[in-house]
């Protein structure tokens, strides 16, 4: 039965995350926007705290989302006759990440132990690997200078040599690439065999043959490091491959790409947080100028400013519900590939629109560094790019709607 209220448990999660964002992130937000490339030491105390929350089943941060197909629907039963509904980890992650991103997106992205690599490990690691890498912070290295959205075109290679894999290649735009303990690296076993030959490997920081070549200077999310990594005959243990060694053409790329169904709603949640931050502050600043936005005037009687606030809030609400839907589907074991992309596409573009517009609505206050509006407008843009650009999301959605293969609709 349709119900759009959050259960108490999830409301508590969101409230706590918002308090964290307010008391921990906001005060140092500007500091690390300016001090790009310096590690926010204030986050160290978060690490232990989050580990505790994770054990309690509440995912936090970019890597907190995971699908556990076999998990019993304990907390789901609404009544005896209806099929059990779950509000689980994916929804908790979305609410968490939204609230923390409301605090600061750059800082959220560099919370220790919460990298995208952790999401991959949570999704596909064996119990042995899980034990071995427990408590480690894992980044994800996919993009290369010559392969961005077209991740099937990567050139980094992994060659078997006895009990080792030997990695060669270059990765760029690796979030937390310098700070993480582990890097999950996408590499191909055989460049002639296409997507099915692409596997992911765990490389530990400090492994010979692996180095951080440079850190990017970016438009926004400057608190988060974005690294170029180089692998030159980098030798790792054979048991560091994630998933099977076999090249299974039938299974192909799907397994690797499935991670995105779980992570895209989380990125959408980041977009919700940034959007909400900007809209809240813009409302507050405009209220001081007498702009009321209390949903009483008909749209045609509202001032242009008030009407614009309603329009932006409606866009945010649409994004929020699409994101919750994608996470709810993941929690309930429903295939959500299309919905995850819809959430990401809508929330990503909406965040950019809202943040940029709010700068404009607040005039010089919006553009000045005395406030965070201009920072959010810079931060927001990444949300329409990483974890699949707007265009890639639209491709995925369109292929699904039109029943087209990636060969037909390119």
């Amino acid at each position: 039965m349709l119900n759009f209220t959050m259960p108490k448990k999830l409301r508590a999660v969101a409230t706590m995350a918002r308090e964290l964002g307010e008391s921990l992130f906001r005060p140092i937000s500007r500091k690390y926007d300016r001090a790009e490339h310096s590690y926010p030491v204030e986050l160290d105390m978060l690490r232990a705290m989050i580990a505790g929350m994770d054990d309690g089943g509440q995912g936090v941060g970019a890597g907190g989302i995971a699908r556990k197909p076999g998990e019993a629907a304990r907390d789901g039963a609404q009544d005896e006759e209806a099929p059990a509904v779950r509000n689980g980890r994916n929804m908790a992650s979305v609410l968490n990440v939204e609230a923390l991103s409301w605090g600061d997106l750059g800082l959220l992205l560099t919370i220790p132990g919460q990298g995208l690599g952790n999401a991959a490990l949570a999704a596909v690691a064996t119990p042995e690997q899980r034990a071995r890498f427990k408590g480690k912070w894992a980044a994800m290295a996919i993009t290369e200078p010559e392969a961005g959205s077209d991740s099937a075109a990567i050139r980094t290679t992994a060659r078997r040599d006895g009990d080792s894999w030997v990695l060669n290649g270059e990765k760029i735009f690796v979030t937390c690439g310098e700070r993480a303990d582990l890097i999950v690296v996408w590499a191909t076993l055989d460049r002639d065999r296409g997507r099915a030959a692409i596997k992911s490997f765990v490389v530990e920081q400090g492994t010979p043959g692996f180095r951080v070549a440079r850190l990017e200077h970016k438009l926004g999310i400057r608190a988060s490091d974005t690294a170029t990594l180089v692998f030159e005959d980098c030798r790792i243990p054979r048991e560091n491959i994630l998933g099977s060694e076999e090249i299974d053409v039938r299974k192909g790329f799907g397994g690797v790409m499935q991670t995105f169904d779980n992570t895209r709603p989380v990125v959408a949640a980041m977009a919700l947080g940034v959007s909400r931050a900007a809209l809240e502050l813009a409302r507050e600043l405009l209220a001081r100028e007498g702009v009321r936005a209390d949903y009483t005037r008909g749209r045609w009687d509202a001032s242009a400013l008030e009407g614009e606030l309603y329009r932006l809030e409606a866009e945010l609400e649409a994004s929020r519900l699409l994101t919750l839907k994608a996470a709810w589907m993941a929690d309930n074991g429903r295939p959500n590939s299309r919905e995850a992309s819809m959430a990401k596409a809508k929330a990503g573009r909406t965040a950019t629109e809202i943040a940029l517009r709010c700068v404009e609505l607040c005039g010089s206050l919006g553009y000045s560094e005395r406030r965070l509006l201009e920072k959010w407008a810079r931060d927001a843009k990444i949300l329409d790019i990483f974890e699949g650009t707007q265009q890639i999301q639209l491709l995925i959605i369109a292929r699904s709607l039109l029943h087209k293969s990636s060969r037909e609709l390119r």
Partner: protein
Amino acid sequence: MSRSPLGALFRALNKISESELAERYGVRELTQQVVYWGTRAGARVTAEAGARARSRFRDLKGRVEELTGAETLTRAEGGGGLFDLTLTEEQSMMRETLLRFAREALRPRAHEADAGGVDEEEEKEFLARVAELGLNLIGVPEGLGGAGEQRSPVSTVLMAEDLAQGDMGLALAALAPCGFINLLSEFGSQLQRRRYLPPLCGEAFVPVSVALAEPRARFDPRFLETRARPEGGGYRLEGVKCMVPLATRAEAYVVFAQLAGQGPRAFLVDAQSPQLERRAERHMGLGAAELGRLELRGVTVGPDALLGAPDGAGYEHERAVDLARLGACALAVGTCQAALDYVIQYCNDRVAFGEPISHKQAVAFTIADIAVELEGMRLMTYQAASHAERGRPFHREAFLAWTQCAEKSMQIGSHGVQLLGGHGYTTEHPVERWYRQLRAIPMLEGALVV
């Protein structure tokens, strides 16, 4: 599995739908079967057609008793529970039935109906089929002849969405009585409900409607120019209403008017009133809804015509307007879904430059955008309706849903025509009709109260 009569009705209907019977006899017989099964489920009373003199709505003065439990709808309790996007079993079954009806009974006659080219006999036959479907029963409790148990804005939203997939104009005509019923369920007295609801659950289609909009550029439902003032123990109404569905056909209306010293209120007005002039009016779209004007030239009504107490207790104008805006949202969602389905099919079939045009990103991305915005509209509409159903505050949610649906549905209407190019501009395809219909969403507040 629920044991409500309505559930039984739809379960039974579903069985029939799957059977060969439905194949052999088509929709008309299908709906007749609904009536049969509805009767068996105890969900129907016989029509009171024979009992009416001037109006089929009998004067019950002096016969007011407390409504029994069976004569009132229950209200869902507050929030609680888990976030959930699944429909109930009954809602899913109803959806299946109505989508079929939309496809087989609405879409084929949409073009003609829109252009006003349907003769009166055909129109009556269509409305009779609508009545056989029993849409009104859901909003009327068993004790008054219906099959409803709980007051459910969500149910009306779903019905509007599904029927609008066939045609928005016809859906509006078919559902106008539901809007009337819902207003009575929200704010009506025992007497008003006893008087008006049972005749709406009979076998014939009884046209009744709701009149909120007024013909001026800056219309705001909070400040009405239609005036009501107390006179002779009752009220006297002056003003002009527009965009009223089934305007010249309806036998009774809920008319919103500014009550002197109070603010906007709702009045029951019977069509027989000699001071009431009714005029059909043609619009950019929605011809099938038979929109028109009501001119109230000193219409006098009794004290029983006012919804809620004279002092305003029991009536909430904001709630009425919000529920009405959600009706427009639901019609938008259904119509946009029809457009999405249509352009997917068309763009996959249409070949240019040696391949289907859906292989071009400019086309494919537009279609993806339609799907994204439509899903947002749908979830926002469901959210507001669900909050309303659970007795939670929903004004903000309804306002935002309406804002979003007004803007996005117009864009989707435009995309629909664009994707078909020159073909979309002709009346050979329905996209030009949806383009015209979807422009009406922000103006339709008041036409369908969920």
